[in-house]
């Protein structure tokens, strides 16, 4: 039962003339926990910007189901994107609002709930990410890792179908990182959401990733795609193996046929 949820077709991303990645072609299926991986600065966050409608591709397109994101009118694009939630690499909480107001923002925008119900939902979402009791704190008053988690709470506020997260566990201690992985897994299971995640954490990659794409900064394109475990077992590309083993193992020759 693999229905494509997000299809990236022949996409090139660039800042002006400076090409970041070219010829990206892959599919994210419904229910996947899809990992975008690659070395620092290879364009993972940039790829995310293209998927969530913030940056127009230099070439190619992104399809949500059958619908093209970048051919569409502004209104249609807004409607498509309403089904998504995004956690930015920096958290991107609105610094002039408390955590509760931040999480409540998308809820009050897109639903007609009364304020009591909204504040209940907000407390529930904050509790999910381990921030119960921090409703009235401002983003500047909590740590970087906590801002990350609050950002996640805001991204999940509307129970999105597709959740994009940029390095959720960077800046978290190992236990919280594990909890966050579990949370993301259970989100997928309970809400039948699709997760698109940028991460460097090998533990998370192998623990929860069901599919992935590997971006290479030198050739500026994707050099592998597939489930991370399979990639580790089957891939013959030294760069992929080096990444997935933290450079500790050399390429195993027995996989060569």
């Amino acid at each position: 039962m693999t229905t494509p949820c997000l299809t990236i077709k022949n996409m090139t991303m660039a800042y002006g003339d400076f090409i970041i990645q070219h010829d990206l072609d892959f599919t994210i299926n419904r229910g996947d926990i899809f990992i975008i991986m690659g070395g620092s600065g290879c364009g993972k966050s940039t790829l995310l910007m293209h998927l969530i409608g913030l940056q127009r591709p230099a070439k190619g397109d992104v399809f949500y189901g059958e619908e093209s994101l970048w051919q569409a009118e502004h209104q249609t694009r807004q409607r498509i994107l309403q089904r998504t939630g995004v956690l930015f690499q920096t958290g991107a909480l609105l610094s002039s609002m408390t955590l509760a107001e931040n999480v409540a923002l998308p809820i009050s925008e897109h639903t007609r709930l009364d304020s009591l119900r909204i504040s209940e939902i907000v407390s529930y979402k904050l509790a999910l990410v381990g921030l119960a009791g921090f409703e009235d704190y401002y983003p500047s008053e909590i740590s970087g890792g906590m801002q990350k988690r609050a950002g996640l709470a805001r991204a999940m506020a509307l129970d999105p179908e597709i959740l994009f997260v940029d390095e959720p566990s960077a800046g978290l201690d190992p236990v919280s990182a594990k909890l966050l992985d579990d949370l993301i897994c259970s989100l997928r299971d309970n809400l039948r959401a699709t997760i698109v995640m940028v991460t460097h954490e090998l533990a998370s990659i192998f623990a929860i990733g069901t599919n992935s794409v590997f971006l290479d900064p030198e050739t500026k394109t994707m050099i592998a795609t597939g489930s991370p475990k399979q990639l580790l077992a089957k891939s013959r590309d030294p760069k992929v193996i080096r990444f997935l083993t933290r450079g500790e193992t050399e390429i195993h020759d027995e996989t060569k046929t």
Partner: protein
Amino acid sequence: MTDSVPCEINVSRKEHTLKAAIAGDWVLGAEPPPLEAVLAKLGDGSDIKRLVFSTETLGRWDSLLMTELIRLVDYGAKQGIQVDTTTLPEGIQGLLSLVYAVPERAGARRQEMRTPWLEIIGKGGLRIVKDIQALMVFIGETALSGFALMRGKARFRSVDLWMNIQDCGPSALPIVTLISLLVGLILAFVGAVQLALFGAQIYIADLVGLGMTREMGGLMAAIIMSGRTGAAYAAQLGTMQVNSEIDALKTMGFEPMEFLVLPRILALIFIMPLLCLYADLMGIVGGALVTVSFFDVSLVEYLNRTANAVHIADFFIGIVKGGVFGVLIALSGCMRGMQCGRSASAVGDAATSAVVTGIVFIVIADSLMTVMCNRLGI
């Protein structure tokens, strides 16, 4: 600490091998021997195939030695010479292998190019054109969100509107009081010196009243607010840009133009006329202070004279001007903020250019409106 031993590099060659003996303390602050002599020996026309090092007498070392070594190794590699680093101390070898572990990204390093003056002028011209285009687009977008507001469709938090009104209204009163009082005083003094020659001190009231209501009140309030609020708007929006907060708003389905820009513009449109009125009154008070205490005119006389000279229309002109200035200040502040780049210095630049743009707009608009009033005879 012992005195440092001067650093030196001595080369000796044996057949096709050049041996570089590195000695002394290579620490930052020391004067390194020029490397050019060594490089020249490796350069074109030499038959050296291999470069080895010896470091028996090397003392302390830090980044100084590393940078010089990297230069040597890079140069050697370019000339096709085999550089043997295995005789270097382990620490240096480790650092060198780190340096060369990640190959330099092709295209990532920015090239510096000398630009001919014609190109500089051309680029400057293009930048101005782009700036004007951006301004037009921004005005268009603002107008669109204004229409959305009128149809009751614009979405922003009313809290934000009230906060902005609080920020640019009551909080600005002290500085507006100070400046407009001073301007009133100055107008009165300057005028009085001339008018006293004819014994016409009473006309100071006309001068101050008309000057403040028609021109100076609005202008002073506008210039204060452009430094105070226009810059603040640019800095706030710029910082939000840096923190990806504006991106986050977009992904949540908000229009930043409605959510962020509209409440700011509305706040200034609402507040500026009131501030103008307040500045006018303060100026008149300032004028009264001077006239009553130095020029032998009673307060009642002064106020009577003012009431005769200044009509409602004069106040009205000032207030209209204030509203226009409010729009201009908010526009330039918000525009520079939304255009802000993604670094701390970009936020500073945005605030600076918001003030500059704002004041330029204000001056242009003021001249136009004054000429218009003059022609229309109001």
